């Protein structure tokens, strides 16, 4: 595109001081604030009465609106001082491949598709054991003050540095020590995330022939789409995606026919078998050309994702379900919950990672997105706005988990060692927790979604699917609960598998790139042997973690999910540390609190959680205390439940030690980075700022609106600009 060489005079940007707020604006925002305040008051004050889930939904929406309108604007204008006269990397380095001026709404779609995944769906479901209130507060307050701020500020700083990655920025702005620590942390955290996501899929598909059949069919469907796009009708993405979605729905329906047939037994797979399938699949998918599997799968999962989220929002409003969970459960204060151990502080804040604050997003915000941004002011809409949308997904997932019968919730989410695995023992188990559900009701719930059993279907996905199926069948009728359940399982498994494909590939490239520094040939990504070795290493790493989780006698999710949550939050700590560092280096010490407050909170939470997971002498929480307890019992010749034999005792000892070591290592890496950064902070604060790698100001020619809706002035400026260039609209129309 010839945008940068255009010598037309710099068109007027719609800038200058904002006009004073009109009466209309005051009335609208006053009303939004009032709705928000009422919703929050109802949620906070209701005890022991029926509360509609819509209060949660609207508390979230009105809080988001106010935060976006006021706080994100404050950050953009005062803290970051976004400057639309500066050309972005997309404009300066435009090469039509990775750097390219992109319409803001299109980029919003790409960015959201990249950040949203299974995390915001699973975490809130598990955190529902604390009651609906802690999760709701953290998801909403967390996203406003922490998550969205991180995404937006990292995106901005990366834009000012030609789209550099988080690791690169840490190395250049903080130091080599911090940089190396960040590199290791990013790689290790990715492996953990892949393992936990894969574990969610394994738990959702185990002993479920319907699920296995439908998900299995997504592979030939994706292959068909890939060949269609490559050979039959190249480039017709919409057409082939429409075909793919229809085939996908057929696959779900067909799964129901399989369920009662002779094939069902062959497709009833154990967790161990599924793990091997997933590992083999992950390896093959990451070495195959992207057009065969990854790209078509990505189209499918993105469309499914957006479709389901929209459907859920509509379904919730129509069904207006009543919250079944308590506002705050006794597990929150006593720390003895069956889903995961630990008190509300710090564990609710690490269980709900994505949706409130997710360090992984910093990798996206410093990866592809900054290279496509048309205008600096758009960091607000893409970074802050995109994360608010993700938070909305998390709130919806939390609602789905708290509107189902809570006896069922605990029967599904407590590990098999606790529930005993049968409807009778599970009913007894939840009765001890203080909930009533009869064995018949448990069996009826499983029959309603045509699953063999719902007892101890941990991992969050089945619970979410059950909640969604309940909301959908209430809202849209038709007695299709089983279809909706498997539809939801399919939708989660689909994009987790996409994340596993893509993550393995990204991990492979990272490994090849890093090893390539010392062994040049290995860094060549077109060398097949190197590719295969690197893929095998990455798949082997997450595959073995997955195997550890799957075979864990204590229940894999409650052991691994805290590790995943803490790892993700530690990555956020690295990103926020970078943000604080850069603000101070740019002589904006007085604004350092903007990323500084979430950083302080995140460090308190993650370090407390890490400390407890490593040093707590409560075997339910501390990994090493747990290992000790089982080691002592084993040496004394005892077998402790839920382990069934000496072999499982060994396994518990090994797993707990491994998890403890990983946990401690992550925390240490982050301490190294923060310590390194504090040195820079002091130096920069004393010197009144330090030089950074920010690229110099280059005047921008591109004109583009800043927000979702263009103002009248922006439209006029766009029109005038396009007229002056006389041609080709850039990155879209209007």
């Amino acid at each position: 595109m010839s945008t940068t060489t255009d010598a037309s005079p710099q068109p007027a940007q719609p800038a200058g001081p904002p006009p004073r707020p009109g009466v209309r604006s005051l009335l609208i925002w006053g009303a939004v604030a009032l709705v928000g305040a009422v919703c929050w008051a109802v949620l906070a004050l209701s005890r022991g009465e029926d509360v509609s889930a819509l209060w949660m939904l609207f508390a979230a929406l009105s809080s988001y609106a106010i935060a976006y309108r006021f706080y994100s604007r404050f950050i953009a204008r005062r803290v970051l001082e976004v400057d639309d006269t500066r050309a972005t990397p997309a404009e300066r380095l435009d090469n039509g491949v990775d750097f390219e001026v992109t319409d803001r709404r299109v980029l919003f779609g790409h960015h959201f598709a990249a950040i949203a995944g299974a995390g915001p769906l699973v975490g809130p479901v598990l955190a529902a054991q604390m009651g609906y209130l802690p999760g709701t507060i953290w998801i909403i307050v967390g996203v406003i003050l922490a998550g969205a701020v991180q995404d937006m500020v990292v995106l901005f700083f990366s834009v000012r540095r030609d789209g550099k990655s988080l690791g690169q920025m840490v190395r250049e702005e903080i130091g080599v020590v911090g940089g190396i620590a960040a590199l290791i942390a990013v790689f290790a955290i990715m492996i953990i995330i892949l393992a936990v996501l894969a574990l969610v899929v394994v738990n959702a598909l185990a002993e479920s022939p319907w699920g296995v059949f439908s998900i299995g069919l997504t592979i030939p469907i994706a292959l068909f789409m890939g060949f269609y796009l490559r050979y039959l009708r190249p480039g017709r993405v919409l057409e082939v995606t429409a075909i793919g979605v229809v085939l996908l729905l057929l696959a779900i329906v067909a799964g129901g026919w399989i369920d009662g047939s002779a094939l069902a037994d062959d497709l009833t797979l154990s967790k161990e078998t599924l793990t091997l399938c997933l590992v083999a699949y992950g390896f093959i998918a990451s070495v195959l050309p992207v057009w065969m599997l990854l790209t078509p799968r990505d189209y499918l999962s993105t469309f499914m994702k957006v479709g389901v989220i929209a459907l859920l929002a509509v379904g919730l409003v129509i069904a207006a379900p009543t919250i079944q969970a308590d506002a705050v459960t006794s597990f929150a204060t006593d720390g003895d919950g069956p889903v995961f151990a630990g008190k509300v502080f710090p564990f609710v804040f690490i269980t709900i990672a994505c949706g409130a604050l997710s360090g992984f997003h910093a990798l996206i915000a410093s990866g592809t997105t900054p290279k496509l941004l048309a205008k600096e002011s758009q960091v607000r809409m893409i970074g802050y706005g995109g994360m608010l949308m993700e938070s909305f997904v998390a709130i919806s997932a939390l609602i789905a988990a708290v509107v189902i019968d809570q006896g069922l919730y605990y029967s599904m989410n407590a590990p098999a060692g606790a529930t005993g695995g049968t409807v009778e023992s599970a009913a007894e188990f939840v009765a001890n927790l203080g909930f009533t559900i009869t064995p018949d009701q448990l069996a009826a719930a499983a029959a309603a979604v045509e699953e063999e059993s719902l007892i101890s279907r941990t991992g969050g996905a089945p619970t979410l699917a059950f909640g969604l199926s309940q909301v959908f069948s209430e809202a849209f009728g038709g007695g299709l609960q089983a279809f909706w359940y498997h539809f939801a399982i399919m939708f989660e498994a689909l994009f987790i598998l996409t994340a596993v494909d893509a993550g393995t590939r990204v991990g492979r490239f990272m490994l090849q790139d890093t090893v390539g520094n010392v062994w040049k040939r290995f860094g060549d990504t077109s060398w097949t042997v190197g590719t295969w070795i690197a893929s095998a290493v990455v798949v082997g790493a997450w595959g073995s973690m997955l195997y550890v989780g799957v075979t864990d006698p204590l229940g894999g999710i409650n052991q691994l999910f805290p590790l995943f949550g803490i790892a993700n939050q530690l990555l956020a700590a690295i990103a926020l540390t970078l943000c604080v560092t850069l603000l101070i280096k740019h002589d904006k010490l007085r604004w350092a609190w903007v990323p500084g407050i979430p950083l302080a909170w995140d460090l308190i939470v993650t370090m407390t959680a890490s400390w407890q997971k490593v040093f707590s002498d409560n075997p339910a929480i501390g990994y090493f205390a747990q290992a000790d307890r089982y080691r002592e019992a084993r040496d004394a010749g005892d077998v402790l439940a839920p382990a069934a034999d000496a072999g499982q005792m060994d396994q518990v000892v090994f797993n707990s030690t491994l998890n403890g070591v990983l946990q401690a290592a992550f925390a240490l890496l982050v301490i190294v980075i923060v310590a390194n950064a504090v040195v820079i902070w002091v130096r920069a604060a004393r010197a009144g700022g330090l030089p950074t790698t920010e690229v110099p100001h280059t005047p921008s020619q591109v004109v583009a609106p800043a927000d979702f809706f263009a103002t009248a002035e922006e439209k006029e400026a766009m029109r005038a600009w396009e007229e002056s260039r006389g041609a080709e609209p850039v990155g879209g129309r209007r």
Partner: protein
Amino acid sequence: MSAGPAVRVRRAVDGVRWYLKEVTGESRWEAYLARCGRDGVEPMTRREYERHRTDLREHNPQSRCC
């Protein structure tokens, strides 16, 4: 704002179509053709063009988050 309902619906449908084509990258081909036409260059075939585009993706993996 004076447009009738039929016009508005059409505009909305066009908008959605435009958005989907942009997001999926389907419209890249048309943009490429237009560019070639402006520059007076003979465009490659669609098959070659799309193959070129997917091959670029091969070495530019994008992470999908959790």
